[in-house]
């Protein structure tokens, strides 16, 4: 084609492009607004990453602070506390992800099997409730339930499972399970929404066919329901793996105390402690950069895995 050498913008001839710009000026003006807003609030903070490679002093700013290379990162990784908070963040992130996913799937499958629309609706409505409560309220509830005189200890002593009340918040071994339970309690109903939608989308003919083959309830779940929602499960798992490191702040911050801080502190709490409270902005930034880097790598790996398996990709 002769036109190929002509100047093109966004794949169209220049005059056509100008005509479109004139027609779409309203959209373009708004786009500029959203572009500027995004640059300011989402992309500008990325410039702040430079602080991680500086001995940042507020009075000098990023432009005039001293460059120190990777010294802050070396300091981080020679700090046993930082290694420990990485472990804590990863461990709790993975435990929570596994626990909430399994519970949500189980709940969705069982809810789908409830006979009677009204009963189903009532259970479902109740199941959403905890999602709408803040972590402040949820941790308050946990404190009440798990305290020395709380309902859990009362039940445990009544059924003679323990001889005296357990102080749940004073022992390291209880912390991760408590966090996992809190996440399951809060999000099971909410997370089940998507699985339930996937179950509803399964062709009823498959169940009928299974029934003709003599399948009972268990068999139908095993051979029809679970294979039917498999791709949804995989997609959601992949989407959430990238967020594993982000899942560790509010509850750990609210439930943690001096006695369990070895297992309760996460990367974000570390950043808060060193960056904001101790005003070591450079160290806090460096700790944050490492977290972001790991998250991005995790997302890219998951995206690749999804592609290999022929699943829908994230981007």
């Amino acid at each position, binding site marked *: 084609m002769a036109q190929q050498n002509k100047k093109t913008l966004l794949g169209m001839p220049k005059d056509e492009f100008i005509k479109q710009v004139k027609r779409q000026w309203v959209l373009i003006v708004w786009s500029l607004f959203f572009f500027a807003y995004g640059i300011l609030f*989402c992309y500008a903070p*990325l410039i702040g990453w430079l602080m991680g490679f500086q001995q940042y002093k507020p009075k000098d700013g990023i432009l005039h602070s001293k460059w120190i290379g990777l010294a802050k990162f070396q300091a981080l990784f020679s700090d046993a506390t930082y290694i420990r908070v990485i472990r804590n963040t990863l461990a709790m992130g993975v435990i929570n992800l596994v626990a909430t996913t399994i519970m949500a799937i189980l709940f969705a499958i*069982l809810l789908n099997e409830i006979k009677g629309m009204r009963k189903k609706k009532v259970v479902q409505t109740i199941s959403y409730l905890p999602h709408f409560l803040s972590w402040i309220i949820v941790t308050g509830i946990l404190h*009440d339930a798990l305290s020395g005189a709380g309902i859990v200890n009362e039940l445990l002593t009544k059924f003679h499972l323990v001889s005296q009340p357990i102080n749940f918040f004073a022992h390291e071994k209880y912390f991760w399970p408590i966090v996992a339970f809190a996440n399951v309690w809060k999000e099971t109903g909410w997370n089940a929404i998507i699985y339930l939608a996937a179950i509803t989308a399964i062709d009823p003919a498959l169940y009928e066919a299974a029934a003709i083959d003599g399948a009972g309830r268990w068999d139908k779940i095993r051979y029809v329901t679970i294979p039917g929602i498999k791709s949804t499960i995989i997609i959601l798992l992949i989407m959430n793996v990238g967020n594993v490191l982000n899942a560790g702040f509010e509850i750990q911050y609210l439930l943690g105390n001096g006695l369990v801080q070895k297992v309760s502190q996460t990367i974000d709490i570390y950043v808060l402690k060193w960056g904001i409270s101790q005003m070591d902005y450079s160290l806090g930034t460096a700790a944050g950069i490492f977290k972001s880097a790991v998250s991005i790598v995790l997302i890219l790996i998951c995206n690749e895995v999804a592609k290999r398996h022929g699943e829908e990709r994230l981007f």
Partner: protein
Amino acid sequence: MSNTVNKKRKMSKADIAFYTFNSIFMTVFVIVTLYPVLNTLAISFNDGLDALRGGIYLLPRKFSVKNYITVFKKDDLLVGAYISVARTVVGTALSLIACAILAFIVSRKNFLFAKHLSLFWVVTMYVNGGMIPVFLLYKGLHLTNSFWVYVIPGMVSAFNMLVIRTYMNGIPNSFEESAQLDGAGYTTIFLNIISPLCKPVYATVALFVAVYQWNSWFDVMLYNRMSDKLTTLQYELMKLLASVTSQSTSAQSMKNSTSSITPTSIRAAASIVTMLPIICIYPFLQQYFVSGLTLGGVKE
């Protein structure tokens, strides 16, 4: 129930076991979900000192509304309630408008920069500066110690934009084309054609944002800790929780005091006040958030 006869005949032993298991599971699930909330409610209506003896389950033992009276007389809680309502209303309105406009722009099929702008925002879902750079940025912009830090920086959410965009993509192009033939500009198309069709998805996103705003406390602690006038209900509740935890060891000294109000009972009352608006609203918006989540889950 009408076809139980038919079903019963077919039910095997395994099926009966299954339905029994299911009923037990659901019963336990409902109890575990509801009990803590109902227990908090009972404690909030119980005399504070009496509650320290424990043993209150679903009903108050010594009924009293003193906890609520105390809560509504506390100045910082009242300020917190006012700011919480303000940030929820203003924040939800701003965020919904911004996300709707952005979604409208990027869902126009022949818009020159639709793909670029869309990608520009999707990236923000995965990459962000982190706590310290963001903190310094807000400080530099004088957003700290200000109400606006609650509503301006989080105004555009890429996830909510994607939810609305997916919905708008489902609206046939012919609506826009016929309006354009009538001489309507993009502003008219957005306001009079697309937005009325998007009411369900707008409700979904409004709910997401409102819940987020109502439940936020970390931004209060981080950016506005110094200004008492900008505190929120959740943040005040957090302070109450902290005081309860530190004082639980000195419960003995509490028992000797003459006041019948204890931090525990006040916190219970404040928790109920904080939960109440959401608990009253969410059951009626179920269809919206269910469809919204499903839309967000299958983003294209």
